[in-house]
C-alpha cells in the first residue's frame, strides 16, 4: 500500500529520472514507437504498390493503424499489475467466447472464426486470446516459484492448450499454433528444464506425421503437400508458392524498383497485398530491401527484449518476452512460408500485410510492452 502511495505522488519525477520527456509521460516508449512507425510507413509504401497503386487500400490500412495505435496507447496507460489482475478474467471470458464461436459463430471460407455481436459487428475471439494466453500463463507462473515444477508445467500446458485446441477446431491451425507458441515461449522463459524441452521436441517430431494423417483437415494436408512439392500442380495449389518464389528470385539484389515488380503488378502473384506482400517487397526492393526490413524487425525485437530484460517483476518479464518472441515468430513464419521454407499457413507479415484485426492486436501487444517499460518503479522487488 505504501509503495502505491509513494508511486502516485511522484510519477513525473520517476519518469523523468528514468527516461525523461513527453513520450514517457504518455507511457509510450519512444524508441519502440519510432521503429514501429518506420516499419508501418515502409509497409504502406509496399502496400501501395502491391495493391495496384490503390490509395483506397492505403487509407484503409491507415485507419487500422490508427485503431491499433489507439489500442496501443490505451493499453500502455494500464500498469502491468492490472494485466496481471485481469488476466484470469479475460482469459476465462475468451475461452467462453471461443466455445461460443464453435457453437454459434459465423462461417467464412469453411471455418468458424467470427462471432457476430448485435450492434458491434463481428470480431474474432482468437485475437483476444493472442494477448490473453501469454498473460494468463505469465500470471500462472508469477504466482509460483521458478523454475517450474512438472505439475506447474502441466498446468501451463493445459492453460495454453485449451484455447489452442478450441481455435484449432474452428479450424484455424495457423492461429492455434501461434497462440500455443506464445504460451510455450512463456514456459521457456520461465525456465522450463532443458530435459523437458528435449522430450517435447522429440514428441513433436514424431507426432507431426500422425497429425498429418489423423488430425489435419484436407485443406491443411494439401498445404503441406504443396509445401513439400509445389511443382506437382504448378497451375493449381502450387501456383502461389511458385509465383512467390519467382517474384522474390527475380528481384535480385537491388530489385526491379518501386511500382515496377512485374509479378505482382501483372497479377501473377496472388494475395500480393496480404500474406504474400513480402514477395512484392523482395521483387521491387531486392535483397537490400529485405535486409532493411529484417533490420527494422530486429530493432523492434531487440527493444522488446531490452524491455523484458529491464522489467521489474516475473509477470512483466514473462509477458513481455513472450509478446516479443511471438512477434518474431510471426515474422519468421510469414517469411518462411513466402520463401518456401515453411508450408503456407496464412500468417500475415506483421504491420506490413494488409489486413484485419491482427494489426490492432499486434499494436495492442506493443502497448502492453510499453506499459511494462513506462510503469517501472524506482525499486524493484
Amino acid at each position: 500500500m505504501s509503495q502505491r502511495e509513494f508511486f502516485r505522488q511522484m510519477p513525473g519525477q520517476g519518469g523523468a529520472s528514468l527516461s525523461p520527456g513527453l513520450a514517457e509521460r504518455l507511457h509510450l516508449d519512444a524508441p519502440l514507437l519510432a521503429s514501429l512507425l518506420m516499419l508501418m510507413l515502409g509497409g504502406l509504401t509496399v502496400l501501395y504498390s502491391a495493391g495496384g497503386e490503390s490509395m483506397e487500400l492505403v487509407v484503409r490500412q491507415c485507419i487500422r493503424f490508427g485503431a491499433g495505435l489507439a489500442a496501443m496507447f490505451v493499453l500502455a496507460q494500464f500498469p502491468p499489475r492490472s494485466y496481471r489482475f485481469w488476466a484470469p478474467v479475460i482469459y476465462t471470458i475468451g475461452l467462453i467466447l471461443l466455445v461460443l464461436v464453435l457453437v454459434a459463430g459465423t462461417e467464412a471460407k469453411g471455418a468458424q472464426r467470427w462471432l457476430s455481436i448485435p450492434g458491434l459487428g463481428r470480431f474474432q475471439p482468437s485475437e483476444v486470446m493472442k494477448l490473453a494466453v501469454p498473460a494468463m500463463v505469465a500470471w500462472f507462473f508469477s504466482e509460483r516459484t521458478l523454475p517450474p515444477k512438472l505439475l506447474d508445467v502441466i498446468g501451463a500446458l493445459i492453460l495454453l492448450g485449451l484455447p489452442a485446441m478450441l481455435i484449432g477446431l474452428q479450424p484455424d491451425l495457423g492461429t492455434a499454433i501461434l497462440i500455443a507458441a506464445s504460451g510455450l515461449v512463456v514456459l521457456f522463459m520461465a525456465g522450463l528444464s532443458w530435459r523437458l524441452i528435449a522430450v517435447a521436441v522429440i514428441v513433436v517430431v514424431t507426432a507431426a506425421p500422425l497429425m498429418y494423417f489423423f488430425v489435419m483437415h484436407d485443406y491443411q494436408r494439401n498445404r503441406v503437400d504443396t509445401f513439400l512439392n509445389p511443382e506437382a500442380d504448378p497451375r493449381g495449389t502450387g501456383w502461389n508458392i511458385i509465383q512467390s518464389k519467382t517474384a522474390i528470385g527475380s528481384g535480385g539484389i537491388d530489385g526491379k524498383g518501386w511500382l515496377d515488380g512485374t509479378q505482382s503488378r501483372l497479377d501473377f502473384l496472388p494475395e500480393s497485398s496480404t500474406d504474400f506482400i513480402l514477395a512484392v517487397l523482395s521483387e521491387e526492393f531486392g535483397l537490400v530491401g529485405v535486409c532493411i526490413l529484417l533490420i527494422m524487425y530486429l530493432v523492434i525485437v531487440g527493444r522488446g527484449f531490452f524491455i523484458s530484460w529491464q522489467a521489474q517483476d516475473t509477470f512483466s518479464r514473462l509477458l513481455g518476452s513472450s509478446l516479443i518472441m511471438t512477434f518474431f515468430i510471426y515474422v519468421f513464419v510469414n517469411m518462411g512460408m513466402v520463401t518456401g521454407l515453411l508450408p503456407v499457413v496464412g500468417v500475415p507479415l506483421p504491420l506490413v500485410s494488409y489486413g484485419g484485426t491482427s494489426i490492432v492486436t499486434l499494436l495492442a501487444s506493443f502497448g502492453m510492452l510499453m506499459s511494462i517499460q513506462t510503469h517501472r518503479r524506482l525499486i524493484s522487488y
Partner: protein
Amino acid sequence: MRRPLTLKDHHHEQRIFGVRLVVGVFLVLLLTGVLISRMVWLQVIEHSRYTTLSDNNRVQTQAMSPPRGLITDRDGVILAENRPDFSLEVIIEQTRDLDALLTEVAKLVELDEGDRERFDKRRRSARRPWEPVPLRGRLTEEEIARLVVNQHRLPGLRISADPVRHYPHDILFSHVIGYVNRINAQDLDNMTLDQQRDYAGTHFYGRTGIERFYEDRLHGEVGYRQVETNARGRILRVLEEQPPVPGQDLTLRLSMRVQQAAYDALGDRRGAVVAIDPRDGSVLAFVSRPGFNPNLFVTGISHKDYSAYRNDHDNPLFNRALQGRYPPGSTIKPMLGLAGLDAGVTNWQRSIRDPGFYQLENDPHRYRDWKRWGHGRVDLHLAVVQSCDTYFYDMGFKLGIDRMHDYMNQFSIGQVTGIDLDNESQGLMPSKQWKKAFRNRPWFHGDTINASIGQGFVLATPLQLATATAITANHGKQVIPTLAGEQQAIERSDLVLQDESNWEKMTNAMVDVTGPKGTARVMAVNAQYPIAAKSGTAQVFSVGQDETYNEDEIAERMLDHALMVSFAPADNPAIAVAVLVENGRHGGSTAGPVAREVMDAWLLDKDGNLNVPAVFAAKSETAAPPSPDSDETSGEESP
C-alpha cells in the same frame, strides 16, 4: 508468509530469465540468419533462373498471321477474299472446368452438335499448347454482346476477329479455286522447320485447287510481336513488333464471264467444261458440275453438310474436269487422222467403202459403224465430218496402237497436261507395253480397233481434251494450260508434222463438222465466226456393281456421255473448248450448244459483235514468272 521466499527466489528467477533471454536472442538471430540465407539463395544464386521464369510469365511472343493474298479473275473480279469473322475460341489451358464452361456458353450462344463435335475433335488432336481452339464461328453482333458481358466469369473464353477466307461466287469456282480450311498438326508435320515458323500464326491452309497450288504465294510471311500480358493473358503493352508480309494477290487467267457462261450452259446436268486460250495456254473457264459451296469448308464443315455431299450420287466433290476419266470417243478422230496422215497410212485422197461395219481378215467379228447401213464411199475429210467409224477402224488398224499411243501423247492424251493444279489425272492412252504391264494380257487387234474411235481402254479428262484441241488449233505448238501463270514441269515437245498443210486441211474438215452436213451443225447456227469442232459420244460400259440406283436412274446413267471439242475462230483460234455432259447421249446436240455459249462469251463483246480478246498480259501480277507469258509454251521446246 511466502514473501521472504519470493524475495529470495526473485534473483534466482531473474538469473534463469536472463539466461533464457540470451538463448531467445540467439534463436532470433539464428532464424534471421536462416531467412537471410534463404533470400540470398533465391535472390542471388538462383536469380537468373527466376528472372527467366518471371519474364516467361509476362512476355509472350505472338505470331501474327499475314493476310492471305486475294484471288481475282483476269479482269480483276474478286474470286477469293478475306472477311473479318468473329469466332468464339477456348484456350483450354486457361479453363478450370471445360464441361461447365461449355454448358455456360451454350446458354449464351447457339451451339449445335456439329460445333461441339468439331471442337472435341480439334481439342483432342495434336495442337500447339495455349493455342485457342475454335468453338463457333460467324458470331452475330448480339451473340458477341452477350459473350462480352459474361466473359469475366468464363475464363479461357476468347472472341477473335481473325479474317476468314470468303468466296463471293460460292459454287461457281468451287472446283478450280478450291478452298482453305483450318490448318492441322499433320499439315505442320509435313513442313520444314522454316515453313513451320512461317505458319506459327496461321489458322488456314490451302486445301484444294488454286488455294492449294499457290499456297506459298498466297500465304505471305509471318510477323511477330512481343507483348506483356498479365496473369489472365490480357495484353498490356506491345514490347516489340515485326509486321507480317502479306501474301501476294493472284490474278487468274480465268474469265468470270466465260466461267459463268460455261456454268450456266451446263445447267443442272453433270459434266465439265474446260476452255483454253490456245495462244498462251490460259485457262478461260474450268467448270465441273455439280459443284459445292467452298465457304462451308473454311471454318469447318458440319458433319451433316459433309455427308450430304458425300452421299450425293452426283458426287459434287469430284472434280470431273481435272480427274474425271471418260472415253473420249470420236472427239480424238481429228488427232488420230493427223497421226495417220503423218505416219503415211492414209492421205486426203484415199477413200474406202463403208458397208456399216469393219472386219479383220480371218475374223468373223464385225466392228459396227454408228450408222448401221454405212456411209458409202468415205475419204478422211468426210470421215471426220460425219464421224465415220469404219474409216478410223481401218486407219487405226494400219497405224497400230504403239504409234497411235506416241502421237496421242503429243496431244497430252494419256499424259498430264501440266496445269497448275494438284492431283491431275493423266487419263489413259494404252499401248502394248502398258497392257502387258498392267493387265498382264497380250494386245489384241480388237483393242487397236476400239482405240481407233476413242473407246476401249482410252480414257481422257475434259482438261486433256481441251488441251489436245488447243494443240490442234495451234498447229502442233505445245499448249500447257495454266490458271495463274505457273505450270507443272513436264516434258512434251511441239508436234511437227512432215506436211504442215495437214493442220490446215484437218481444221477445214473440223469446220465442216459444224457445217450443214456435219455432226455438230447445231452449234454453229448463226455463228459470227467459223468454228472447228468434233463431236463425240462415249459409251458408258458399266455401272458399279455395288452402287444402288432406282430404275429410272439406272436407265439415265446407262446413257452415253456427250462430248464436244471445238476451237474458234477456226482461222485464228483464240479459244479451245472441251465439253462433257454425262449421259447427254448426243455430242452434237447436247454438248455442242454448251461449247457455243462458252465461245460466244469469250469472242463476242457486249453488243454481240466479234471482238477477239487480246492475249493475257500480266499487269497486276506482282510476281510473274521470269519468262513472258507468250514464251511459256515455246519455252518447252528446249528441255
